[in-house]
């Protein structure tokens, strides 16, 4: 069993550095990994795609990091890739690992972690709908989750033009005025009184 699987003392606000500990063990097992300490209780670790499933299954099986708190994606359209972020929490250590991995934006396919955490089914369904990333083997892929009868490109991709779609689909009430707040306030209170 893993040594850091100990009860953290809730009365002690400064726990021992479990983050460095788990990072050292991860690197000893899986090679060099980029990391960044975001907060006291949040450690970001970048893992390439081949090592993602071994890292996650080792974390869940042999360490206190048993809970998948969140799974989401970021569209880095300039670099032509998606970033997948798995937040894995150790409730006993009060520490969360942000396991980040990059996948190709054109193929947009990633490995499912449904076999590790059953609740990943819902996250993967939502990412599939909102970003168009496919998780083969995950149930409910392609089943509508929030958007019903959606017939356009996935709306969370950054090349989706929200305003254009909205103007095309949802009519606007005639007479609505779009007022630039800066112009309006400047006109009302005088240019000098605003941001001067």
């Amino acid at each position, binding site marked *: 069993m893993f040594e850091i699987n100990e009860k953290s003392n809730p009365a002690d606000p400064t726990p021992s550095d479990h983050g460095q500990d788990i990072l050292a063990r991860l690197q000893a097992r899986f090679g060099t990994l980029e990391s960044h300490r975001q907060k006291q209780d949040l450690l970001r670790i970048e893992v390439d795609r081949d090592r993602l499933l071994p890292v996650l299954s080792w974390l869940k099986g042999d360490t206190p990091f048993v809970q998948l708190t969140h799974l989401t994606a970021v569209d880095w359209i300039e670099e032509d890739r998606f970033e997948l972020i798995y937040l894995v929490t150790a409730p006993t250590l009060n520490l969360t690992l942000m396991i980040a991995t990059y996948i190709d934006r054109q193929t947009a396919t990633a490995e499912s972690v449904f076999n590790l955490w059953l609740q990943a089914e819902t996250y993967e369904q939502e990412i599939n709908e909102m970003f168009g990333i496919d998780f083969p083997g995950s149930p409910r892929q392609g089943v*509508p989750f*929030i*958007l*019903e*009868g*959606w*017939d356009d490109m996935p*709306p969370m991709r950054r090349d*989706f033009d*929200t*305003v254009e*779609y*909205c103007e095309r*689909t*949802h*009519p*606007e*009430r*005639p007479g*609505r005025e779009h007022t630039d707040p800066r112009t309006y306030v400047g006109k009302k209170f005088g240019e000098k009184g605003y941001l001067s």
Partner: protein
Amino acid sequence: MKRFDPDKPWDLTTLPTTAGPDGSVPHAPVVKKADGQDQCFLGAGEVPAAPKLQEAVATIKNWFRANSLNVLAFGTGCGAIELRPLMTSRFDMSRFGITGAPTPRMSNVFIISGYLSTKTLKRVIRSYEQMPNPKWVVALGSCTINGGMYWDSYNTIKVLDLYMPVDVYISGCMPRPEALIAGFQYLMTEIKAGDANGWHHYLENLDWYRENQKQVIKDWDLPDYSW
């Protein structure tokens, strides 16, 4: 005019069609006087009562209706949070004869409380059509009027009265419970005067509403009318 056939209540063509779909002013809720609004409930052989008697009965009926408003428990957006203080002791809407109702079949006021996503719109239409006539819609907040802060959202409708008839709009983001009470008082005045006939307008122009609804609800699987 074809008469209402009680054997075929789903046949909307037998309802009175005094006015056609007024596509000319689609954005303004058209509210008409209640002349003969109860005729659609006449049986096959029944004759409408004398106009004076009809008017007297309608006045009494409207007075009763205005003083027993049952609000459907359906919170669509953030405005639903303003209904809690309205129900409870601080603003106490039961002073005005307004109370809550758990199901569409037991209610006659639908409060659209804030932004409405297209997914919710489908459920709203289903619930609205299940409510017994007469029924009224109170739209809350700027999101229902012109989109509000969701003016560029891909999944939120902007003009509510394209999809269902609205009797009272209450502006604000969010409207305070006092504004809601003022809106309800306005609604009660309208009902007593026989002017709050959005439900009647909905039945008369159902095709026009259906067309608008199907433009945003892409996977349309509702029946012709949810009786």
